[in-house]
């Protein structure tokens, strides 16, 4: 151990709540003061109304954050909070995918609420320590470590003595510091970020767990939205939770037999069929790279192209060779899907840890594409190194990849030059200089590195103002919406996925709805109404996982073998047997009945509350749901000419005569038609969601959902206008 003993600044003891039917019914509040060392600790009760309206997890996070902030609160104000919460499923060990915890905060990147999740142990340990959620508010007057000692029922705040503020170092040292011995390291989980959080907004949170087989700390990321920047702004080096003893019955479920039966069935299915389905145990989500390439969905060179001749270099076959095989992945107990892949003994070639051999978590698909094909790199070793340093520095690999891809295109177009980049040649595929850019962003080395680390939306304003770059061109090609960079799917040929990315609560992240196959390949969503229905149902369904402390992968990355013949159409995509497992387990934990309608209703309450919360923070209206040109179709001639017959046919579908037209003219026409389709889609979706034309939930909707709290009603009365109502709403 390298860190010096940490001075105890404050301590608080508590009587732990007993978890009953999935809930502790208490949350933990930790106030850090306002740079005055005035620490505050509280247990706060969870009311039946809170459970009824917000369920748990992300829902609890939003409710607690709503109560903590005002409409004028900014992300770096002391009253902003970082909330971490699991949910009623969180911590059960009899069914796969129950180790998730969800973080909620006001985001530096999106300037509204954000939620991001990570697997591992933190959520279960927090709950077993007696809390359904943790709120961290205020700003410490010095770097601190918050320690939740779930063994001795104490919360302690220590003055941090950690000098290397990067995630692997912090996590390794704190596992060592708080563990009695090697075996005890598994009883600890650490939330930390990295040095990039000092200047960058695209910085996430790392959640650690100790991998006993590797004898190494592993990191899972709640990467998106800038949670790491918030943690750093609060002067918190790390949040640590420790819980040594627990059983599979901590949630005190009504009917453990039902949970065990469902779990045993799914474990067998994973064992018997994962290899012929998604190969999650061998490749994790990286199994998707070649599939995305085959369907023209892989982002290549800032989403310009959907496939590349060098795909073989980054296919799952290559990653399987690099990932250690035949080991349990060490993530939360009971998840045999084992998607948390790792590369062992990886020799770093660059940066502060050059020459060291490290364990690298991932890359998952998003990283393999974002820090791979999207920046024109088809070298898995480079991607693994970039993945390691991104995690270590705290950088979100998705926003980092998408931002760097956009930077490369800006550079190639001459919008920025080598003088602006301080000597970096930022062309697609220039591995050396792209890696150097990652290090510089983390270090905040110069004005370009700092501005780029803000993400596309803020960086383009800086480039325009300081380098004279053309803002309109940068807007066309920047895959960003609501301040969040798009994740790594090329969506332009699926109208439904335009909505799945750009009609979302928090921006183009793929955790609301991934409808590309259903729409573009299966042709199951032919009308605007069909697409709107999918953009109502799937975001609500997916949100449900975030209320309960669940990972979504065991839902549909493994399926019953007869799912495809037993169920037809969209029903098959819902994987009814697994969906029913969730309903049955919910009842088995809580004792409360739940059917499909009830499931969607739980989500819809939170979905609409979150939308209204964003309205409260100055966003949450139609003008923030904007799709960049690159998201809707080709922008430059070379993109069209990569698939000329395909795009010609698409243009003809609008009744256009294409003879004699230049490619530039054809691009302009296709963009015009698709922009009109986008507006129609937006209207259809808003209507189906019970929103008005400005994208605001109507009074009728909030009353139906029972979220018509006085503050909500007052806010809506201020924003709802008669002229924005749909005629037949």
């Amino acid at each position, binding site marked *: 151990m390298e860190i010096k003993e940490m001075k105890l600044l404050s301590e608080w003891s508590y009587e732990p709540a007993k978890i009953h039917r999935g809930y502790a019914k208490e949350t933990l509040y930790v106030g850090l003061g306002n740079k005055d060392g005035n620490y505050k600790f509280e247990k706060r009760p969870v009311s039946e109304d809170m459970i009824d309206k917000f369920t748990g997890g992300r829902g609890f996070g939003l409710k607690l954050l709503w109560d903590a902030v005002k409409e004028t609160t900014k992300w770096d104000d002391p009253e902003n909070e970082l909330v971490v919460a699991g949910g009623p499923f969180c911590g059960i060990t009899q069914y796969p995918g129950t180790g998730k915890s969800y973080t909620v905060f006001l985001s530096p990147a999106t300037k509204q609420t954000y939620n991001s999740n990570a697997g591992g142990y933190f959520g279960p340990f927090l709950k077993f320590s007696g809390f359904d959620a943790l709120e961290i508010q205020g700003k410490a007057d010095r770097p601190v470590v918050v320690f939740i000692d779930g063994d001795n029922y104490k919360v302690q705040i220590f003055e941090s003595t950690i000098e290397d503020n990067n995630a692997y170092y912090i996590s390794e040292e704190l596992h060592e510091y708080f563990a009695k011995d090697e075996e005890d390291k598994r009883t600890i989980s650490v939330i930390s970020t990295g040095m990039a959080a000092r200047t960058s907004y695209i910085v996430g949170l790392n959640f650690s767990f100790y991998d006993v087989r590797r004898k190494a700390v592993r990191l899972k990321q709640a990467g998106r939205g800038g949670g790491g920047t918030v943690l750093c702004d609060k002067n918190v080096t790390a949040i640590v939770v420790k819980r040594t003893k627990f059983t599979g019955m901590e949630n005190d479920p009504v009917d453990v037999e039902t949970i065990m039966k469902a779990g045993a069935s799914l474990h067998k299915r994973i064992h018997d069929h994962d290899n*012929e*389905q*998604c190969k999650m145990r061998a490749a994790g989500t990286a199994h998707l790279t*070649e*599939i995305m390439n*085959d*369907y023209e969905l892989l982002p290549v060179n800032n989403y310009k192209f959907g496939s590349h001749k060098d795909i073989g270099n980054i296919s799952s076959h290559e990653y399987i060779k690099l990932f250690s095989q035949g080991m349990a992945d060490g993530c939360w107990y009971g998840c045999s899907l084992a998607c948390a892949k790792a590369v062992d003994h990886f020799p770093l070639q660059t940066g502060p840890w050059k020459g060291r051999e490290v364990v690298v978590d991932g890359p998952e698909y998003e990283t393999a594409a974002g820090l791979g094909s999207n920046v024109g790199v088809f070298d898995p070793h480079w991607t693994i190194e970039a993945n390691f340093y991104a995690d270590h520095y705290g950088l979100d690999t998705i926003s980092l990849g998408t931002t760097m891809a956009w930077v490369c295109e800006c550079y190639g177009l001459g919008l920025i030059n080598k003088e602006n980049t301080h000597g970096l040649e930022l062309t697609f595929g220039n591995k050396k200089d792209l890696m150097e850019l990652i290090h510089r962003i983390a270090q905040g080395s110069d004005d370009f590195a700092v501005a780029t680390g803000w993400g596309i939306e803020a960086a383009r304003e800086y480039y325009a103002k300081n380098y004279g770059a053309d803002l309109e061109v940068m807007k066309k090609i920047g895959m960003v919406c609501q301040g969040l960079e798009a*994740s790594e*799917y090329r969506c332009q040929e699926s109208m439904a996925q335009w909505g*799945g990315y750009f009609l979302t609560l928090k921006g183009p992240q*793929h*955790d609301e*709805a*991934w*409808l590309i*196959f*259903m729409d573009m*390949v*299966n*042709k*199951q969503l032919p009308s605007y109404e069909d697409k709107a229905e999918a953009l109502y149902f*799937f975001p609500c369904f*997916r949100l449900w996982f975030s209320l309960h402390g669940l990972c*979504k992968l065991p*839902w*549909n*990355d493994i*399926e019953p*073998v007869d*799912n*495809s*013949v*037993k169920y*037809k*159409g969209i029903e*098959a*995509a*819902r*994987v009814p047997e697994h969906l029913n497992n969730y309903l049955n387990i919910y009842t088995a934990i809580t004792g409360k009945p739940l059917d499909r309608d009830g499931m969607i209703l739980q989500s819809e309450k939170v979905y609409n509350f979150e939308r209204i919360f964003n309205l409260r923070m100055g966003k949450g209206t139609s003008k923030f749901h904007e799709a960049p040109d690159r998201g809707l179709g080709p922008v430059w001639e070379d993109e069209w000419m990569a698939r000329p017959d395909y795009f010609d046919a698409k243009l003809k579908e609008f009744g256009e005569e294409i003879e004699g037209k230049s490619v530039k003219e054809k691009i302009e026409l296709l963009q015009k038609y698709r922009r009109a389709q986008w507006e129609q889609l937006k209207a259809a979706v808003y209507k189906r969601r019970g929103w008005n034309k400005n994208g605001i939930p109507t009074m009728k909707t909030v009353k139906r959902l029972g979220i018509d709290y006085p503050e909500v009603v007052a806010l809506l009365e201020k924003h709802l206008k008669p002229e924005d109502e749909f005629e037949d709403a």
Partner: protein
Amino acid sequence: MITVNGNQSDWEEGLTVKKLLERENYTFRMLSVWINDQPVEKKEYPARLIPDGAKVQVIHNISGG
């Protein structure tokens, strides 16, 4: 001719489900195939013949991302 997910597609003598999937480059593994609204089990893909004029649906089942 046959239709595949609503699109016109060439038919040939001896066209099996397996051959069709290869021709269309449908490499995703979690598929369900329906011929004239009747499901086809995966083990039948190599031998199951597609008749001329058939309506074929190749459903890619992922919906989550």
